[in-house]
């Protein structure tokens, strides 16, 4: 079942559209999750009240449980909320009892019968690198990409047990199927600054993280493109450039793509097929992607 969350469908719909193109290309079917809500944001609602966070997340999980299909989501935050709630409710009987008492009031029950995955898991584990490679009809030969894997897909590493969070390779492997050139930079694994309710609490502190990441990419010789598996990181890196200019007077010009968009282009879809030029950065700056740099 396809969990959309808030930012993809409400602010970066090009990511939703691109996902709806590439999953069928790879033979994977996306089922709509009618009536799903905010995950709810783990660093925000988890910081306010753990039981409320777990209850609302569990409500989302029950929608997928009714269908019997696993969840996949393209957002690190949604993934963290749903995966962690699923995990904690399966392990922690006390929390599960509290949550199920709450859910009983709306005739729902968490049963713990499904798994939660991220698009990156669907791409790497379900489709597999070979199948992705077969779909690449427009290789990104010579395009230099900087990656921003973000935090919540792979951390905390001991709980999630997905990738070695100090030296992750899965997201990089997926991106490299396109033939693009991976650009290592010092702060690749650092947080974008948006998470944990910091973007809402103090925008300038959040942007200061983002600035450090941009400077670090420039120190590494720059990149033609930044790729991330998370729309909240994408928003912070994309719209964040406009905000950095406003708050600190410094200008950065990076195209930032979600991995779904990046693969859609590599699979031969046109930018207009999913509206690449609707990113908030372009809308606000009245600019366009640097087409030549991304071989369009």
């Amino acid at each position: 079942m396809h969990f959309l969350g808030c930012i993809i469908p409400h602010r970066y719909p090009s990511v939703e559209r691109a996902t709806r193109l590439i999953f069928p290309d790879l033979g994977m079917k996306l089922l709509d999750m009618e009536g799903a809500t905010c995950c709810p944001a783990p660093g925000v609602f988890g910081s306010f009240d753990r039981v409320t966070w777990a209850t609302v997340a569990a409500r989302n999980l029950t929608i997928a449980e009714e269908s019997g299909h696993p969840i996949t989501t393209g957002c690190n935050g949604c993934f963290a909320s749903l995966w962690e709630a699923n995990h904690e409710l399966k392990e922690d009987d006390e929390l599960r009892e509290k949550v199920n008492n709450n859910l009983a009031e709306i005739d729902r029950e968490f049963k713990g019968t499904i798994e939660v995955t991220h698009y990156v898991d669907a791409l790497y584990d379900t489709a597999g690198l070979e199948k992705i490679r077969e779909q690449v009809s427009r290789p990104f030969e010579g395009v230099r990409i900087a990656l921003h894997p973000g935090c919540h897909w792979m951390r905390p590493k001991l709980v999630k047990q997905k990738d070695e969070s100090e030296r992750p390779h899965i997201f990089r492997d997926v991106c490299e199927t396109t033939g693009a050139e991976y650009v290592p930079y010092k702060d690749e694994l650092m947080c974008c600054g948006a998470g944990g309710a910091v973007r809402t609490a103090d925008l300038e502190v959040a942007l200061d993280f983002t600035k450090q990441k941009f400077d670090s990419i420039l120190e590494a010789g720059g990149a033609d493109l930044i790729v991330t598996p998370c729309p909240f990181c994408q928003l912070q890196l994309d719209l964040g450039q406009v905000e950095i200019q406003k708050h600190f007077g410094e200008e950065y010009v990076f195209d930032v793509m979600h991995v779904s968009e990046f693969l859609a282009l590599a699979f031969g879809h046109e930018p207009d097929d999913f509206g690449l030029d609707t990113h908030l950065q372009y809308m606000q700056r009245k600019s366009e992607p640097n087409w030549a740099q991304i071989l369009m």
Partner: protein
Amino acid sequence: MDFVDLIKKAGGPNVQSCYQCGTCSGSCPAGARTNYLVRDIIRKALLGLKEECVSVTELWYCTTCYACTDRCPQDVKPTDVIKAIRNIAVAEGHMLSNHQKVAVKVIETGHAVPLDKEMWQQLREKVGLEPIPPNASANPWAAEEVKKLSEICGFDKLIGYEEFLKAEEEKKKKKKKEG
């Protein structure tokens, strides 16, 4: 219940394993640019200095990136400890007004970032999608369920939802008078 027990109960069960090595603060991108020191907050917590933990704005500079949690040699899970302290802070009335607004959005629409303007629907149509996605935006019953859950959990009271509504009402009235 003393502060340490409160933290353990609110989601930071390993807080007492901390031996103050400072690995967490050394890994912390929030600490690198602000006065926020995760090791220091944990030390104060272990000393029972509740007020000094819950009332400082720095508490809200942690992005929950889990760099500290992945490196802490004692499995303290500092990120979870910080979130637990934030739960206690909110329960004691230390909530930032921006955060209250986000919480209200979820209570009212089911989404922290709602489809609240015509322009967002147009953006969806522009990329070739239906104007309203199949989440709570297209299903008001889903937002109703979340609202009910927030009442059952006492979340509406916790964040001061009623007071928020009253204040908004007052603002509107004032505007009307002036306008």
